[in-house]
């Protein structure tokens, strides 16, 4: 439940004991809230970078908010697994394991990277806005198509990747 201050401001926190998330036969996530069937729902992160599994907004398919789940970990194990899987799918953020080259061409930057074991090339236009170094030491890169990529721990990445990326992290 939300605290009194948040309740007064109309923030509807859902009681984790009353929330049950599962998948229907078509693979979509559905919710029952205190035994009431809410149908298909959508899960949205309030703080995608800092707290990916806390303060999760639950809305219907037309984006009308049903409420907020403060901590996913407070849900029962089945609901927790379903919610985590859904969020990781909805927030597609492939992890860059290595940057092989960054080539500047007339003001745009072409990245050649390795994601998992696949080569992935993409272009970045406004590099100072497209690369973000977050306080938790991860790096987020957005390309011209609107895709996002992550380097979860900048300190642990290979030296070459660090050297190539460092000039753009300020």
């Amino acid at each position, binding site marked *: 439940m939300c605290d009194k201050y948040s309740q007064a401001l109309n923030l509807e926190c859902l009681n984790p004991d009353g929330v049950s998330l599962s998948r*229907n036969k078509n*693979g979509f996530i559905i919710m029952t809230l205190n035994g009431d069937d809410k149908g298909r729902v959508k899960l949205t992160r309030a703080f995608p970078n800092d707290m990916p599994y806390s303060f999760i907004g639950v809305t219907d398919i037309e984006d009308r908010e049903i409420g907020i789940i403060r901590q996913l970990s407070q849900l029962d194990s089945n609901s927790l697994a379903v919610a985590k899987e859904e969020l990781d799918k909805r927030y597609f953020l492939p992890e860059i394991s290595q940057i092989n080259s960054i080539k500047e061409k007339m003001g*745009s930057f072409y990245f050649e990277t390795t994601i998992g074991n696949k080569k992935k090339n993409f272009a970045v236009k406004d590099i100072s806005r497209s690369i973000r170094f977050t306080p938790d030491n991860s790096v987020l890169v957005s390309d011209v198509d609107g895709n*996002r990529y992550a380097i979860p721990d900048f300190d642990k990445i290979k030296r070459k990747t660090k050297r190539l990326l*460092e000039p753009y992290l*300020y």
Partner: protein
Amino acid sequence: MKAPYAKFDLTPDGALCDGTLTFGDDIFTVSYENGGVSRFPLNGISQARQFTDIGCGRLELVPENAPDDGSENILLCRFSMSHVIQIGELCKVVNHYIKSGELLEISDSEMHVCSICGRHLIEGIDVCLFCVKKGYVFSRALGFFKKYLPVVIFSCILMVLSNLLTAVMPIFNQKILDNYISPAPGTTVFFDSQFKGIAILAFLMGLTFSLSRVLSIFSGRISNRIGSKFSNDLRIMVYDKIQRQSLSSISKKTSGNLIKRITKDTEVVKEFFNEQGRYLVSQIVILAVSLSMLLRTNAKLALLVIFPVPIGFFAIKSFWSVIRLRYEKQWRADSRATSILHDIIRGIRVVKSFGNEEREINKFSSASRSLAKISASNEKFWALTFPLVGNFITIGEFLILFFGGRMVLKGTLTLGELVLFNTYLAFLYTPLRWMSTLPRRIANASTSLVKLYEILDEEFTLKDTPLPKSLNAGGAVEFKNVEFGYKSYEPVLTDINLKINPGEMIGLVGHSGAGKSTLINLCMRLYDPSLGSITIDGTDIRDIEQSELRNNIGVVFQETYLFSGSVWDNIAYARHDASAEEILAAAKAANAHEFVMKLPDGYDTAVGENGHSLSGGERQRIAIARAILKNPKILILDEATSSLDPETEGKIQEAIARLTENRTTIAIAHRLSTLKNADKLVVIEKGKIAEIGSHKELMKLKGIYYDLVMAQRQTAKLKK
């Protein structure tokens, strides 16, 4: 016809894959790279619906009679944002097929990939930056220069002559030294003839020098004159193109970006062709002359000085990439510190009112410290490496002193020849140093050129038809099956069918983001609908010349923009030939006349940039006067009174009542009371017309409009 298809790259579980989605024979075929294939029949499907998540999207089929919550939808495929446009196109094609039975082709332009390397093209840049050839970039730019080419060639010839004359001067030096000051042993010379010889050579040297300077000054003057004209032509060409582009093309770029292209990029191109082009010619001449003179004077010594040059160049090139990255880092740190400063200074009232001075001081100090650290490290690196490389290239100078001096002592080289050699050596290093910075200059110029080509090559998305129909606007407006989205994969308006009779006032009502402003943008033809048509008096607006269409439509926006100039200039913006009496009458009708007359300079008052010397209500009344002066058949009011106090709004409502008389009016207002005079209210909800009727009819219906009215009454009560 090829079956419509789209690529996708995610499995239903969100793993990366390569897949193709094809639609044909009323069946969707989803095939994966590993050979897996699934088929979904279209039978019983009401629509295909694309959803965008964060960094990805999905395509679902909505079965007929399925519940609204989407729980019975069928997930066809998931995809990253790289495929969103193509999937969106396929979705549109399928939905059109479901409605009409007609199967359209997917347009290739929507695929937006480079045909050579397959890389995605960057939005707003139609050429692939990876594949575009620098040669093409520059040869095309020469085309802009064409009409000035004879004069430019003349200027280059003058420059070459000036350089040749400068290159001759060391020979005079050598002659003075070898023939008169230090003649070869055994040569008999007389003081008088020596003095005369020195005087003649010194005179010739002075003459050559003066002539060289005069030619150089002439060349510079011609070049500057041509440069200014060229830069002016280029600026006007780009500006003209931007003015003629559609709003959708212009909106893709920020105003700062467009201004930079008109001012900075044209200047970079001018500078490159005007200055660097001229230098290139002259530096090549100097290089060729000094090299040949060095070889001619003493081939062995010449080879001695030339050998470190390629090694030095290679070293510079290698250092350059390191230096570039280091300075890139410094540039970003600098930019970050400046932006923090800019942000804090602009928001200083907020900082102070929240008492956050300490926090902001720390934020800026940290950015500034970081900049200082990077900058010191770069200075150290630069101070250590560059002179080393520079000295390595010019190591020949020291070698010459040693070997050349020895040759003079042995008598195999004269003193004059040694001096001549050293002078040409200095000549040789100037173009070499300049050329080492040439790649960077070429890169800068080609970047600017490509950005200018983007503007110049952009096709007009809203073209006038070759045989436009004239508009005798009675003012009947009709939307027929209109569908539109700013992004092809995200429809904002669907199934819009609306008939507005001449002289009728329509009020558009709905939640924010419902599509009301989009509807009026389409009516003004700032965009074209992706499906359906809009007619005025039965003529499709795409068949009417845009200037004529807009002459018949007057608009008052919520955010009024006034240009720098007088009140008079701003009202007359609607009709430049308006008489003084017409302007006064329009201002009077707009309830503006009263306040304008109180101003010390009356209608001659300068309103300042965006009318900053006037209040919001005053600016709005001038905008209404502008619309009245235009006397349009169709009037569009987009939240024209929403941000005003009740008294000012009352005055503006009076003005609007005069303005809307006998005109077809489409008005958007959040404050529903302002639409009390509307003949018909149209409620837009999620891009569709949800309700149409008079105030009474809609209140009886107890639908969306009723809810909106009730919500506003509740808010009004709370305010009291």
